């Protein structure tokens, strides 16, 4: 597959792996911010290629994982209403709220549809004028433009039966929070490639300067990740703390101006509670007053609905890089993909799920492995 296979080429990976081994002289902790990166690292067994001195910390960039229980409970309440068609990305359906998950509400008769795009939900609203269609707008700056577009189009077309349950989050405040925390042990970041494709690099310069951390905007394929790690390690070893762009084939320094304009039209910056972490100022996007008619929280009077998180789930510690998923006492025991205690065990991008699913084999991949042929 063109534009994918080239970035998964084992032969081309070798020189990058060797360069990383040569560059590293000291232990470094690197956080990959995005869940897509976490998934890819686990899927291709990349950690096993790195020198032991490099440890990867899985960051909070999994939208499924950080959506707070309170908003999930709002989603569950909405999805159970007979007049509502509740549309969601598939990942969200198995995430436990305080009492149940969306799959359970579906089994009890809730009309819940998995969609790939908020525009699919918009189309459903146009086809079913007698029903209320709610789209669960979760995600980082990557999903925000399309969600904004759906609200923008709904307003322009005068749809009265479409709304967003907004749980949008922003990356930079989360990185600042991680760096501010007293036991911060992150030396550098692989920033999320697609978030930066929308937002550009400007928000990351002040972070790199203030906290003196290298930030390399990195894509998601194995060669991208290895190159991003190499760039980060070279900065760390040289004592530099700059924003660099590994994903130059897609990410422009200024980002996507049209997407940003659409986001600004529909959303405003709000405080947001992150599951397992707490409320972070300016870390979310909520609908502007001009779009209040399309805000499901207002339309259905959901303010105040919402429960509390399970105290047995240490997801917050995992998301902040303080705890490896496998070191959690519940990992693989009372918390499994079949019966998740917390969200990181649900999504393919969740750190716990990725570890559970792709547990590495005990082999040294730098030595020639037995061929299956």
């Amino acid at each position, binding site marked *: 597959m063109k534009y994918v296979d080239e970035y*998964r080429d084992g032969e081309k990976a070798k020189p990058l792996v060797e360069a990383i081994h040569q560059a590293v002289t000291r232990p470094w902790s690197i956080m990959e911010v995005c869940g897509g990166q976490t998934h890819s690292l686990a899927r*291709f067994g990349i950690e096993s290629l790195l020198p032991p001195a490099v440890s990867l910390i899985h960051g909070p960039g999994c939208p499924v994982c950080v959506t707070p229980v309170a908003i999930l409970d709002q989603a569950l309440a909405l999805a159970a209403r007979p007049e509502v068609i509740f549309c969601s990305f598939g990942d969200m359906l198995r995430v436990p709220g305080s009492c149940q998950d969306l799959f359970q509400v579906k089994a009890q008769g809730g009309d819940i549809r998995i969609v*790939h795009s908020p525009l*699919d939900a918009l189309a459903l609203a146009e086809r079913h004028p007698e029903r209320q269609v709610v789209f669960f707008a979760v995600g980082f700056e990557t999903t925000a433009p399309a969600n904004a577009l759906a609200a923008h189009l709904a307003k322009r077309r005068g749809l009265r039966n479409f709304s967003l349950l907004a749980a949008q989050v922003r990356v930079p405040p989360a990185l600042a929070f991680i760096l501010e925390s007293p036991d911060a042990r992150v030396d550098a970041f692989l920033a999320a490639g697609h978030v930066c494709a929308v937002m550009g690099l400007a928000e990351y310069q002040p972070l790199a300067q203030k906290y003196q951390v290298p930030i390399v905007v990195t894509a998601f394929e194995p060669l991208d990740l290895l190159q991003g790690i190499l760039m980060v390690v070279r900065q760390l070893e040289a004592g530099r703390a700059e924003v660099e762009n590994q994903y130059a084939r897609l990410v422009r320094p200024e980002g996507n101006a049209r997407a940003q304009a659409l986001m600004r039209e529909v959303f405003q910056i709000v405080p947001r509670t992150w599951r397992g972490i707490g409320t972070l100022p300016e870390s979310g996007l909520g609908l502007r007053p001009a779009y209040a008619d399309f805000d499901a929280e207002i339309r259905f009077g959901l303010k105040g609905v919402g429960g509390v998180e399970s105290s047995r789930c240490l997801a917050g510690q995992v998301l902040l890089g303080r705890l490896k998923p496998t070191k959690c006492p519940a990992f693989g025991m009372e918390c499994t993909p079949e019966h998740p205690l917390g969200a990181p065990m649900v999504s393919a991008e969740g750190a716990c799920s990725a570890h559970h699913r792709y547990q590495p*084999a005990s082999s040294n991949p730098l030595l020639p492995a037995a061929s299956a042929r």
Partner: protein
Amino acid sequence: MRDLLEGLMLPSFQDPLLEARHDAALLEIQGVRLAFTTDSFVVSPRFFPGGNIGELSVFGTVNDLAMGGARPLFLSCAMILEEGYPLEELRQVLDSMARAARRCGVRIATGDTKVVDKGKGDGLYINTTGIGLVRDGVALGPGRVRPGDAVLVSGDVGRHGVAVMSVREGLAFECPVQSDCSPVHHLAAALMEAGLDLHCLRDPTRGGLASVLNEIALDGALGIEVDETAIPVAEDVSAACELLGLDPLYVACEGRMVAFLPPNQAEQALTLMRQHPEGCGAALIGHVLEGPVGQVQLRTRLGTHRSLDLLSGEQLPRIC
């Protein structure tokens, strides 16, 4: 599904025939060895690129019989119709079933039709049950798989699941992928007639190739290693899976089989399969190990190894 089977179904019936857990039960009646299987079809939408629920219900059961080493002979057809289901569509489905049965050389010998109230069913459900004659000298099953066995797949994987998903309401996307929906019993017969010592055959339907490999590793108490670069996946299937955030190794096939046989027969089997229209895309994808028991290891294209686990529930499309 495995929990449901092991926790509820098997303990309820407690029958060694059922507990063998093969695609078809192997029975012996007055010295005649029969394969016996049943399957229900609830696919939505009922018509998809490359097939429909009717032919699927014939091929699915025929393939299950073939996986038991049998020559499929007779099928039953039970239909549950939702009130108001259009007769014109029913006619199309029945025509497809009749054509499929002729292609497979099986007879639809008995049937049943029930109508349920509007809103109590999803248009049409079909159950087919099949009986076939097991070939002399053939005994297939996970218990016969041995360390060292070669693992072959008869063609590219993931087609059916992607084709169905591409036309499902709310998820539709432009995609040229056609389902692989077809019978594989001629292919299985060709391997057996050539005198190959087949140890086990499985068709990777629900849960795809990865699930079949895991089932064999668990039921045969063995390990399996497969090579990611050797597993055939069509370019359009892998592109669709990339977009949807799915792993093609877990996506259903409806016209493929996985064969386990001694390593020194792998080349001959591969050559035979590739000469056959149902197996022209066949590939040797890995081999069976003594352990770790119950585990499937994938050698990634980077040369690293990771486990290819059983999937919990359905694959959920990712957000970004």
